[in-house]
């Protein structure tokens, strides 16, 4: 993609005015309505949350080195896995790519000056911070032991812990997702530059459009659900309490109506990122553009009708179970379409293995593993055996860490030069990608085996014969922690010492690469007119198109 008048705005010199140096001071950040600055504010906020959630995970893995538990009391262990899940899901993975890369890139990719509602965008950050602080307050003042799913009666009748502030924190943070999704939908519909038709949009935009639909349709349901739960705790009037005719299963239905689509909130944006990375580093147009675009929408739609597969063993009707099982298998189709199309894009491409590409390839492998093991769980009979074991834990970590997080890191590495105007050391970035890949597999592959052998999740102790696999997993977790620490060091280092990136360090296509790095406040210095489809790599250096 390029602009018709690309020559008219050759990148200004790096010393030019950009969104980072246009004005200074804390006020210029806290009151900004610039989507790029808001994206960076989200980046810093969720990195802090990721570190907190990661520490809880490290403590858990250290504890599980010994069968009787090496570190903490069982009650503390329950709080650790709850904190880890709640922070990672609601305060890191859900906002991760949409709120950082999405905020930064959507207006630039479609040739707009900003999102449709910049003030709402800023408001969403404040709402997110308020929710996060309330949840952290609940965690610091005593913690929760309900798991991230808040199932009653663990969270209502039988909980001695601080469920209310944490649940309200999740409730409030939900509104920041809604505002973000609303903003993206309107922006993508109404703010596209002349010539930027729907089928010229980068696939990242399609993926985030699907994600925004889920934000807008799913989040209000979880909001009302945790709100009802909080009311039950506060006023002692039951909605989910069996003693007064309530049904705890209804909570699970309403919870998963959001929380299953939320899995696709986490993975769809990563798929969008990977589509961008695979084309840029194979120097090829994506194979089957429309299929990849529509598979994003297909995933968003189907995601709303599969929630019952979380409840196969809860006593829901067997017929409901059958239907949910079949529908869950259906999700595999659009996911597989994406994987096959990425693979076909690689075929005869001129592939270069720079750091973002390593993350993208890691994503494809790990996501495929996570997806295929998901089929075991969509099948009713095997799910009865595997439900509630470490098999589940391993499966969703392959999707959420091996998939979503790898895509997030790949995206951060790909667009970091655009965001900051600086290059990071590619050697260290490649080292980090490999360390993360090895550490991840060492952590979670043994958990598949543990789960298959019958080790239940969420227990602070386990039988001695499982120790070898648990020690492997804990060892992997420490490798993984090192892998995550390396980028933190060299990315911060690059802010000061990195080489200037120039407008397009990767030679990639896309409107965001036609403007300076970092971009000027209004993104483009001349009006943008789009004259060609996405990923038109034909004729660029190294292309075989």
């Amino acid at each position, binding site marked *: 993609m390029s602009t018709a008048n690309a020559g008219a705005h050759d990148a200004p010199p790096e010393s030019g005015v950009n969104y980072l140096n246009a004005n200074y001071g804390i006020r210029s950040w806290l009151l900004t309505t610039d989507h790029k600055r808001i994206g960076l504010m989200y980046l810093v906020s969720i990195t802090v949350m990721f570190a907190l959630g990661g520490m809880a995970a490290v403590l858990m893995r250290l504890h599980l080195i010994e069968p009787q538990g090496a570190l903490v009391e069982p009650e503390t262990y329950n709080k650790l896995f709850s904190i880890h899940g709640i922070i990672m899901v609601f305060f890191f993975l859900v906002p991760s790519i949409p709120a950082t890369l999405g905020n930064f890139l959507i207006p630039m990719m479609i040739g*707009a000056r900003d999102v449709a509602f910049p003030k709402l965008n800023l408001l969403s950050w404040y709402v997110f911070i308020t929710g996060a602080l309330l949840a952290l307050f609940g965690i610091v003042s005593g913690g929760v032991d309900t798991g991230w799913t808040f199932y009653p009666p663990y969270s209502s009748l039988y909980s001695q812990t601080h469920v209310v502030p944490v649940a309200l924190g999740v409730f409030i943070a939900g509104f920041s997702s809604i505002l973000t999704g609303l903003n993206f939908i*309107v922006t993508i519909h109404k703010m596209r530059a002349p010539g930027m038709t729907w089928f010229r949009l980068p696939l990242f935009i399609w993926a985030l459009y699907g994600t925004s639909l889920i934000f807008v349709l799913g989040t209000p349901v979880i909001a009302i659900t945790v709100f009802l739960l909080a009311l039950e705790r506060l*006023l*002692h009037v039951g909605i989910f309490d069996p*003693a007064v005719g309530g049904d705890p299963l*209804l909570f699970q239905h*309403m919870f998963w109506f959001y929380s299953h689509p939320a899995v696709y909130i986490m993975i769809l944006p990563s798929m969008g990122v990977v589509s961008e990375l695979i084309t840029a580093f194979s120097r090829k147009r994506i194979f089957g553009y429309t299929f990849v675009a529509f598979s994003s929408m297909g995933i968003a739609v189907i995601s709303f009708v599969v929630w019952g597969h979380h409840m196969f063993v809860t006593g829901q009707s067997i017929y409901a179970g059958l239907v949910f099982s079949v529908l869950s298998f259906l999700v595999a189709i659009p996911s597989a379409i994406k994987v096959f199309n990425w693979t076909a894009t690689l075929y005869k491409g001129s592939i270069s293995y720079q750091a973002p590409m390593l993350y993208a390839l890691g994503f494809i492998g790990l996501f495929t593993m996570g997806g295929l093991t998901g089929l075991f769980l969509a099948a009713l009979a095997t799910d009865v055996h595997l439900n509630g074991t470490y098999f589940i834990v391993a499966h969703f970590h392959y999707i959420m860490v091996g998939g979503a997080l790898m895509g997030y890191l790949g995206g951060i590495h790909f667009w970091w030069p655009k965001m900051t105007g600086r290059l990071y050391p590619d050697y260290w970035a490649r080292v980090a990608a490999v360390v993360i890949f090895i550490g991840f597999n060492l952590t979670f592959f043994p958990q598949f085996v543990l789960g298959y052998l019958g080790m239940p999740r969420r227990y602070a102790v386990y039988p001695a014969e499982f120790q070898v696999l648990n020690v492997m997993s804990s060892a992997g977790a420490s490798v993984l922690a090192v892998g995550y620490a390396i980028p933190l060091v060299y990315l911060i280092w690059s802010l000061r010492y990195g080489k200037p990136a120039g407008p397009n360090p990767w030679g990639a296509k896309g409107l965001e690469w036609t403007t300076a790095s970092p971009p000027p406040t*209004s993104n483009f210095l001349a009006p943008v007119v789009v004259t060609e489809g996405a990923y038109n790599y034909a004729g660029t250096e190294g292309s075989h198109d």
Partner: protein
Amino acid sequence: MTDLPAHGAHPPGFAHQFENMQQQREASSLGMWVFLVTEILFFGGMFTAYIVYRLLHYESFVTGSHLLEVKFGATNTYVLIASSLTMALAIRSAQTGKRKGQIIFWLILTMFFGALFLGLKFTFEWRHDYIEHIMPGFGFQYRPEWGSLGPEVQMFMCFYFFMTGLHALHMIVGLGILTVLVIMTARNKFSPEYYAPLEISGLYWHFVDIVWIFLFALLYLIGGRY
């Protein structure tokens, strides 16, 4: 903010991120519709829970429904429909370029009906429920004629207060929005070319009214009393 070529004189209310007024109008309208979709899902979660429990505990929910006074609900329904009319007239006045006094008149009348609704709800209906000891969490008492249905009748009343309370909260927000609109009108912010805030606030106001229609039917009317 922008260093693009100037668009000529900016019309009032024009935001920098848009190319022209039409794009801005379409974006605000679409934004409000998307917001209303999330609101439908927000209330929808509660409606679903209500309907599921109504099917599970049919008798208790009918008993609970009979505790509500239809005359309060019906009066409030008329009041809200009247407020929808005056809201539409306010927007129409702005669209056809009437004097600002006329727009303000319709807006104030809308606020009056909205406040009347809340006044009737709080000072008559909820107070009545409190005195009758059918407000869960605030001195709720089981009645002998309910027999073993007591807890489930209380569950009905929980839904009643959660649902109408959430609706009342939306009304209060709506009154706040109307106040802002009155101030904006008084400061000559609107013209036949630019009245998007009036229009999208109107969408919100009508939506809140429609929610009430559903609440009235589901909570008061389907008890099978007539």
